[in-house]
C-alpha cells in the first residue's frame, strides 16, 4: 500500500496530540504543581528549555532562507523557501502554545501589550514573538490564498504579494533580535548559570548558532519530507546550504572558545566534573562532528552523511539552548528537577500537532515545488467531505488521550491532597507520637487521657470522623485553641488553703459590699510584686490582674526569653532548638523498647499543659 510511512507517522502524531490534550485539561484544572515536576528552585523546566528555546531555534530556517532568496537573490533556493517559512510559522505557533501551558496565568498574556517594562529581556522576547508571528503569517498567507477564487481573498493575496520584500526584511530584523534576545534572557542569571555558558556575548552566540541551526533545519526538513513522500532528494541544493553552515559552525566554535579564553575560563573547561563534561559533549555534538562532516565534500554530498550532520546540528543546537535554559544550572542550584512524563508528552504533542498541520498544508497546497503532495487535492478542502480521512486520526487521538488520563498521577486528577499525618502507633500504654511535620519529631499524644476527658455517646467522633471522606482526624488545634489565647492560670483553691491560716478571704476581696469576682478583687501584683522579673522581655497582658496568663505558646516563648538573655553566651541555654514545639514535646521519636516501656513517657513533665482547674468562675463562689 502506498504512503504507508505517512499513515504510520500520522497515527503516532495523532495519538501524541490526544495524550497532550488530555494532560492539558488537567494542567489547567489542577494547576502546574500536580501536573509538572517544577519546583520553587527550578521554576523553568522542559517547557521553556525545549518548547520555547528549541521552537524558536528550529524556526530560524525561515528567516535564513527568506534572506537567501529575497535579499541575496539566490533564486535556486526558492523551492525550499515555502516549507522553511511554514516551519518557522509553525515553530513560533508551537512556542506560543507551549508558553500557554507554562505561564501560570496564560489568559493574562495580553498584559504584555498593555503593561510595559522595556528593561526586561523577556519583554523584548514577547514583543518579537508577537510581531514575528504576524509577519510570518502574512509571509505565508499567499500560499493559502493563491488557491482561492474568491474576489476579496485574491485582492488580499495581491496586496500581500506586493509587500513581500518589506515583510521579509521586517521578518529578518525581528528574527535577528529575537534569536539573540533569547540569549539575553539568561544574562541576569550569573548565579545560576555555569561560567562555561554564562558570558556577556550570550546573545551573539545565540544568533550565530541560530544561523547554522536554521540552515540545517531546512536541510533536515527537506530530506525528511522527501523520505516521507517517497520523492527525490534535492541534494545539490542542500549541499550548498551545508557548505555555508560549516563556515558558520566553525565561526561559532571560534567565538565560543575565544570567549572562554578571554575570560580565563578555559582551565575550568579542562577540570572534568559535570559542567565541563556537559560542555564537551555539547561542543562535540553540536559543532565538531557536524562541522567536520559538512566541511568534507564527500560526506556533504551524500544523503546519509548529510542527514547525520543536519540532525546533529539541529539537535545539538537545541541541546545548547537546553543547557543554557537548565542543564548548566544543575550544579550551582543543586536542583533535582527531572521533567515529568506529562511535561514531555505535552511538548511532543505540540510538535506533533505542528507536524500534522505541516503535512496537511503540504498535501493540499503548493508548498513543495512539485505542487501538492497528494495529487487530486489541489483545492481548498471540502469541509462537508471531511470525515472518512479523519477517522483514523480521531481513533488515535482518543486512544492517546485515554492512555494519558489512565497514567496521570492521582494528584493531577484529584488536585493536591492534604498529606495524611504519620501516626506512630503506641508501643505500650496509650500514648502515641504524632509526627505532624514528618521531620522525625513528634508530639506525645495521650490517647487514653483524651478518651477519658471527652464525654458523650459520640465521643470518638470528636476526633475520628469515620463518616467523613478519607476518615481524617480532627487537628489538635481545633480543640486546643488556647495555645494562642490568654488562659487563666490563677489557682483559687491554692490561695484559699494558704490564706485560711492567715487573713482569710478579705485579703483579696477587700470590699465586702462588692461582688466577689475578678474585677472587684485585689490586683495580684499588690502581693506578688516580684512576679514580673526586672527586665523581663514579656509583660502579661492583663496586668496588674495577671491571673490571666498569656497563651501557653506565648508563655513558653515569651517568659523563657529572660533567662536566655541573662545567660547569653552560656552554651547550654543557647536556645538550640527551642523554637519547634516538638523540641519540648517529647523530642526525637524513639522506637519503642519493651524493656523500658516508660522511657518515652518520661520526657519533661514541665511541658504538660496546665490543668484548667481554677478558672475565674471560682472567685465569687469562694466566700
Amino acid at each position: 500500500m502506498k504512503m504507508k510511512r505517512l499513515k504510520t507517522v500520522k497515527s503516532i502524531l495523532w495519538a501524541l496530540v490526544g495524550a497532550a490534550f488530555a494532560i492539558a485539561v488537567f494542567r489547567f484544572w489542577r494547576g502546574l504543581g500536580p501536573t509538572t515536576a517544577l519546583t520553587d528552585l527550578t521554576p523553568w523546566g522542559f517547557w521553556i528549555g525545549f518548547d520555547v528555546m528549541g521552537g524558536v531555534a528550529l524556526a530560524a530556517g525561515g528567516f535564513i532562507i527568506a534572506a537567501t532568496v529575497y535579499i541575496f537573490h539566490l533564486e535556486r533556493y526558492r523551492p525550499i523557501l515555502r516549507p522553511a517559512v511554514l516551519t518557522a510559522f509553525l515553530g513560533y505557533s508551537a512556542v506560543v502554545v507551549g508558553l500557554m501551558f507554562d505561564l501560570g496565568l496564560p489568559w493574562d498574556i495580553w498584559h504584555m501589550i498593555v503593561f510595559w517594562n522595556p528593561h526586561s529581556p523577556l519583554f523584548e522576547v514577547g514583543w518579537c514573538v508577537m510581531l514575528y508571528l504576524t509577519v510570518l503569517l502574512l509571509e505565508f498567507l499567499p500560499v493559502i490564498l493563491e488557491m482561492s477564487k474568491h474576489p476579496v481573498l485574491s485582492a488580499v493575496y495581491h496586496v500581500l504579494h506586493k509587500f513581500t520584500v518589506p515583510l521579509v526584511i521586517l521578518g529578518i530584523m525581528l528574527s535577528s533580535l529575537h534569536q539573540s534576545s533569547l540569549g539575553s534572557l539568561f544574562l541576569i542569571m550569573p548565579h545560576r548559570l555555569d561560567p562555561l555558558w554564562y558570558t556577556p556575548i550570550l546573545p551573539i552566540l545565540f544568533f550565530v548558532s541560530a544561523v547554522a541551526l536554521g540552515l540545517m533545519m531546512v536541510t533536515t526538513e527537506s530530506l525528511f519530507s522527501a523520505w516521507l513522500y517517497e520523492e527525490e532528494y534535492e541534494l545539490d541544493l542542500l549541499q550548498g546550504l551545508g557548505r555555508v553552515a560549516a563556515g558558520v559552525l566553525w565561526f561559532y566554535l571560534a567565538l565560543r572558545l575565544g570567549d572562554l579564553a578571554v575570560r580565563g575560563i578555559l582551565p575550568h573547561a579542562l577540570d572534568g566534573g559535570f559542567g565541563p563534561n556537559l560542555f564537551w559533549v555539547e561542543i562535540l555534538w553540536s559543532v565538531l562532528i557536524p562541522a567536520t562532516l559538512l566541511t568534507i565534500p564527500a560526506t556533504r554530498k551524500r544523503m546519509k552523511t548529510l542527514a547525520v550532520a543536519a540532525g546533529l546540528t539541529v539537535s545539538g543546537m537545541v541541546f545548547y539552548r537546553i543547557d543554557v535554559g537548565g542543564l548548566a544550572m544543575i550544579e550551582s542550584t543543586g536542583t533535582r528537577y527531572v521533567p515529568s512524563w506529562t511535561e514531555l508528552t505535552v511538548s511532543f504533542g505540540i510538535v506533533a500537532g505542528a507536524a500534522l498541520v505541516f503535512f496537511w498544508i503540504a498535501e493540499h497546497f503548493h508548498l513543495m515545488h512539485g505542487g501538492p503532495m497528494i495529487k487530486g487535492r489541489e483545492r481548498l478542502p471540502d469541509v462537508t467531505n471531511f470525515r472518512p480521512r479523519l477517522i483514523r486520526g480521531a481513533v488515535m487521538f482518543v486512544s492517546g488521550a485515554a492512555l494519558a488520563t489512565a497514567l496521570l498521577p492521582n494528584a493531577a486528577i484529584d488536585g493536591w491532597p492534604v498529606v495524611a499525618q504519620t501516626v506512630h502507633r503506641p508501643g505500650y500504654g496509650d500514648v502515641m507520637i504524632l509526627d505532624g511535620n514528618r521531620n522525625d519529631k513528634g508530639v506525645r499524644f495521650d490517647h487514653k487521657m483524651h478518651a477519658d476527658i471527652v464525654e458523650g455517646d459520640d465521643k470518638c467522633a470528636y476526633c475520628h470522623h469515620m463518616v467523613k471522606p478519607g476518615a481524617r482526624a480532627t487537628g489538635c488545634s481545633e480543640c486546643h485553641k488556647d495555645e494562642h489565647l490568654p488562659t487563666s492560670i490563677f489557682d483559687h483553691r491554692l490561695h484559699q488553703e494558704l490564706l485560711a491560716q492567715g487573713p482569710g478571704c478579705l485579703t483579696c476581696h477587700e470590699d465586702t459590699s462588692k461582688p466577689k469576682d475578678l474585677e472587684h478583687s485585689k490586683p495580684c501584683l499588690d502581693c506578688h510584686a516580684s512576679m514580673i522579673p526586672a527586665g523581663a522581655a514579656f509583660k502579661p497582658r492583663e496586668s496588674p490582674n495577671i491571673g490571666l496568663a498569656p497563651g501557653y505558646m506565648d508563655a513558653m516563648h515569651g517568659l523563657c526569653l529572660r533567662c536566655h538573655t541573662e545567660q547569653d553566651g552560656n552554651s547550654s541555654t543557647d536556645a538550640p532548638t527551642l523554637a519547634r514545639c516538638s523540641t519540648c514535646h517529647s523530642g526525637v521519636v524513639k522506637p519503642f523498647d519493651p524493656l523500658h516501656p516508660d522511657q518515652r513517657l518520661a520526657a519533661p513533665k514541665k511541658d504538660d499543659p496546665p490543668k484548667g482547674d481554677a478558672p475565674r468562675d471560682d472567685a465569687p463562689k469562694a466566700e
Partner: protein
Amino acid sequence: MSGPKGILTDVTKCIGCERCVQSCRMANDLGTVLPFRWLLDDGLSAVRWCSVLRKDGKFVRKQCMHCMQPACVSACPVGALQKTAEGPVIYDSTKCLGCRYCMMSCPFGIPRYDWESAVPYVRKCQMCYQGRVSKGVQPGCTAGCPTGATIFGDRDDLLAEAHKRITDNPDRYLPTVFGEHEVAGTSVLYLAPMQLDLLTLGNKLDERPMPGRTATAMSAVPPVFVGVGALMTGIYWIIERRMKAERERAAGNGTPPADAHGHGARDGKEG
C-alpha cells in the same frame, strides 16, 4: 518621610524563637504550610515569607532582601514588581502573567509560587508595605522580635548602627555588613559572626547590580534592529540593481536571462 527604609538583622542576637515568622504570618494573613513536593528546605514558601535558618548553632533569618537594584524588577516583563521609594520591593498580582522570570533572576532565590493553585501568583515578603510601612508602621517581623535581633529603620541609620556595633565589638562580628555592597546593596542588612553564603542561591555574587547585566544587551536592541533593517534593505537594493542591469544587458544580447540569476548573485551571499 526620611530616606529609604531597611531592616537590620543581627545574627548574634537571634535566639531562633521564630516569633518573626509568626508575626509575619499574622501581619500578612498567611495560611498553613503543607508538605508539598515543590518546597525547598529553607522554610520559605508561598505562605511563609520569612523563615529562620539554622547553621552551627546560629540562627539566620531569611526573607526578601529588597535589593536596591532588584533583578526581579528589571526582569518582570509587565512591571508587576516595583521598588518603592520607601525601600520595599512590592508585587502587583493584577499585572502578573505567571512567567516566573523573577524567580529565575533572583540571586537570593526568594520569590515562591502557588504551584498547587490553578490560578497561581508569585509570593514573597513585601516588607509589609501595604498595611504598615507605607503608613509609617514597622513590619510585622521586626515588631514581633523579642530580642531586638531584627530592627527596622532608615537604611542609612541602620548601616551606621551596624558599623558602630562592629567597632564596639570587633570580636563578635565579621567586619562587613552583608547587604551593604552585595549586588549593589540591599535594603535588608545582616551582621553576623560568619559568612552568610546560605542566604544566596548558586554561584557567588559580586557587587555589580543585577539589572546592569542585561542593560548592555537591551540598549543594543534599537540600533541592532535599525541596523539589520538598513543592511538588508541596502543589500537587496544593490543586488537588485545589479541584476536589473544584467537582465537588460542580456536582453540586448538576445540571451535568455533566466539562468543568470543564481550565479550572478552568489558573491552577495557571503557578504
